[in-house]
């Protein structure tokens, strides 16, 4: 072959900055869309993406990846698998597609912002591939669940979730809009590509692929692995941006962007990954606890990545470590208790052997989270199932939007953190969400959680049924019921009988 090697011409393709003379630079690159940090353009021009690929290579590699993922054989095996899969695992899949498909597609916007408004030509080219990647991830993760709407209507949420006002989606959208949809190109790169993708997504994919493999769902495992290989490439956009920021005296600004985004996405990630990992995956298939996984794949790696790029640990690191022990356990309790508000069938998953496992992985679980479940179990063994549903509204955080909760039982650590702004009181789950709010009040003020909407009359009539319909329950699909028809509580019955 007499073709040139990519390295011979690659740099020329990323020398595309010019000095405009018919419009002002500030008009071509408005601060709010481009770079509010006033880093000189010469500095941005030093942007060097660590992972290089040409368009020619891209379309070839991606074609081959899709050929494998879309094969008819894989579709048939998926169909067979889902028809006999455990409901806990199906929950994971239903949560995943609903949370992820349209979010990935939304990230096309984020990459488009960098392609248009990024000051670094290399960034603009990488983000062009990033747009395409996100289009792929949106489309393939719509195609797969679409095969399943004929089996189970709850899969319709893969398309509808982000158009709904379901409480879980209001939470996800608030975070995603904050982190990847409504920022300038450079902040988006730091928040989305670094904090979100390098910090959490990449690793989430590894966890998900492991779960799928353990369950024998090899086509989902392959899909996730294939998506992860794209993420690993375009996630790299964030690193040079942060390095250039630091070199130009903007470390504090970079640290702030990364810390806000990491926390915001973490609060969702813990639910989307932590709850399935510690509760939905059948006990015999669990490889490691969410906490072990966080320590092994996230904490060590993220700390190193922060150090490598020149940033520090977030100020809230200890609070984050504490949240790993609590947030997803709280939300598992909440989701199960408000199970009709979600589009999957939450499983209790606290039978005696499961509790033993939880206690081993999270010492103290039985005395605290177990205390919450003991009350529920007590009602179930007395055949008072109706008493295990929550009919009141929790207080939700005005940043992450999740019910404000913390470790129950005798220690009772739940606290609401508050701030007043322009005559209104805002509630927060943790000092970190409060910090996020207070660090940029004008951005976050005015927020209405699902509960605020209930009390301020946005949702009418103010009945539970109306709230459920507002959230898409009974409209998009039926809501959740206990996924195992309370069989997990059976072993408690003889014990309770004996006590009586």
């Amino acid at each position: 072959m007499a073709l040139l090697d990519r390295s011979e011409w690659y740099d020329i393709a990323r020398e595309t900055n010019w000095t405009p003379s018919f419009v002002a630079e500030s008009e071509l690159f408005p601060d709010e869309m481009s770079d509010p940090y006033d880093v000189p353009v010469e500095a941005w021009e030093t942007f060097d993406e660590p992972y290089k690929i040409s368009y020619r290579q891209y379309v070839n590699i991606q074609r081959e990846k899709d050929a494998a993922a879309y094969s008819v054989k894989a579709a048939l095996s998926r169909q067979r698998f889902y028809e006999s899969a455990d409901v806990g695992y199906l929950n994971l899949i239903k949560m995943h597609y609903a949370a992820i498909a349209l979010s990935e597609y939304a990230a096309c916007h984020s990459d488009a912002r960098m392609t248009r408004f990024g000051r670094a030509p290399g960034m603009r080219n990488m983000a062009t591939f990033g747009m395409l990647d996100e289009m792929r991830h949106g489309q393939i993760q719509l195609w797969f669940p679409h095969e399943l709407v004929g089996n189970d209507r709850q899969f319709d949420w893969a398309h509808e979730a982000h158009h709904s006002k379901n409480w879980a989606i209001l939470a996800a959208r608030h975070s995603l809009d904050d982190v990847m949809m409504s920022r300038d190109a450079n902040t988006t790169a730091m928040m989305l590509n670094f904090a979100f993708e390098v910090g959490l997504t990449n690793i989430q994919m590894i966890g998900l692929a492991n779960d799928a493999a353990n369950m024998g769902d090899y086509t989902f495992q392959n899909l996730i692995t294939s998506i992860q290989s794209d993420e690993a490439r375009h996630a790299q956009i964030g690193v040079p941006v942060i390095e250039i920021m630091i070199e130009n005296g903007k470390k504090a600004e970079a640290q702030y962007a990364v810390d806000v985004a990491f926390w915001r996405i973490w609060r969702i990630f813990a639910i989307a990954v932590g709850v399935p990992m510690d509760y939905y995956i059948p006990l015999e298939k669990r490889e490691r606890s969410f906490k072990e996984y966080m320590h092994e794949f996230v904490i060590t790696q993220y700390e190193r990545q922060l150090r490598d790029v020149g940033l520090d640990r977030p100020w809230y690191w200890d609070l984050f470590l504490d949240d790993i022990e609590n947030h997803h356990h709280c939300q598992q309790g909440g989701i199960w208790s408000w199970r009709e508000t979600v589009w999957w069938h939450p499983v209790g998953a606290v039978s005696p052997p499961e509790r033993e496992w939880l206690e081993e992985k999270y010492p103290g679980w039985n005395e605290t989270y177990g205390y919450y479940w003991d009350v529920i179990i007590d009602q179930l063994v007395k055949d008072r199932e109706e008493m295990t549903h929550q009919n009141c509204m929790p207080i939700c955080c005005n940043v992450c939007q999740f019910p404000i909760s913390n470790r129950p039982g005798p220690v009772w650590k739940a606290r609401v953190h508050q701030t007043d702004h322009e005559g209104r009181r805002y509630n927060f789950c943790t000092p970190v969400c409060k910090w996020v709010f207070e660090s940029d009040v004008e951005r976050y003020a005015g927020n209405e959680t699902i509960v605020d909407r209930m009390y301020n009359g946005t949702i009418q009539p103010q009945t539970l049924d109306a709230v459920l319909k507002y959230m898409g329950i009974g409209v998009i699909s039926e809501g959740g019921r206990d996924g195992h028809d309370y069989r997990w509580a059976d072993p408690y019955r003889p014990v309770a009988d004996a006590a009586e």
Partner: protein
Amino acid sequence: MSEPTDEVPAPEADDFDPTAPMPPLKTWSHLAKQRRRPSEYEVVSTNLLWSTDGDMPWALNPEIPLNKWYLKYRNGSPLRHDDWDGFRDPDQLVYRTYNILQDGQETYVDGLLDEFSEKQHDKGLDEAWIAALARLYTPARYLIHSVQMASAYLVQIVPASTIENCAMLQSADQMRWVSRIAYRTKELSYSWPDARFVAGERAAWEQERAWLGFRELMEKVLCAYDWGEHFVALQLVAKPAIDEAFLRQLGIAAQRNGDTLLGLLLAAQMADSDRSRRWTRALVDYAAQTDGNRALMAEWIAKWEPLGDQAIEAYCAELPDNPEAAREARRAAGEFRASCGFDA
């Protein structure tokens, strides 16, 4: 299990049971009303934006800059339609078919480059033509990159995912040609080390008379932030001007100067532009379903066409061995607009 249904039943108010299983569907609920089997394109491409669902694009304070930006330039655009989500790409491309298509096209281009390199094509070109390439061809990576950027603006500002996807693939197509032009720039520099390939393109783009019109046009298009106006300025004026002056008329000059390779490369690039024209025409037709939109688009064309024509004139005036270039390019750009229902 009951049979799949097309209906999306609303729950009855009185006996509402939120957990009563609802019948499964044959497709997404939002496509079920079509009452026919949806294509893969429809399943994975339609109604994907959440920021167009309510009044406020992003779930943050209405006063943040990005809410104001989207309210002004997207939601507030005078180009209106009740259902932008109803737009369909006539090519119905999805990500995976785009890669199949373009992998094939790139294999063809690799074949061309390989073959002409084997034949030592570049060494056989004459010196005057080499000088023309350094002035009129290799600096085009700046022009095509500006279209890559402008297309990416459409990606983030259009009101429907089906439009967004067309713009996204168009942006990627531009990067394809930025890469190929960069490739040729380097390759030409090996045979003609003194011709200022690699070193001279930025200055040419910023200063050469030939490029001033295109640079003015694209700098201004990039700053046309209303989505409707951006669409018209880019798709109905700027791209047709580039297609006709740079791809077509430079291609003709290339053939007359024995540069068969460039002629074939520009023709291959034109295939991408033809696809762009198909969805552009389809979107014009779709927008024109709403009264007043055709007149509005015609006004925007009237505003931008002089800049497009000026760009064509400036560029074509410099093309060697092609005295008809400007007239032909202007005519053909106008012809495309006429095919979209806009008479000169």
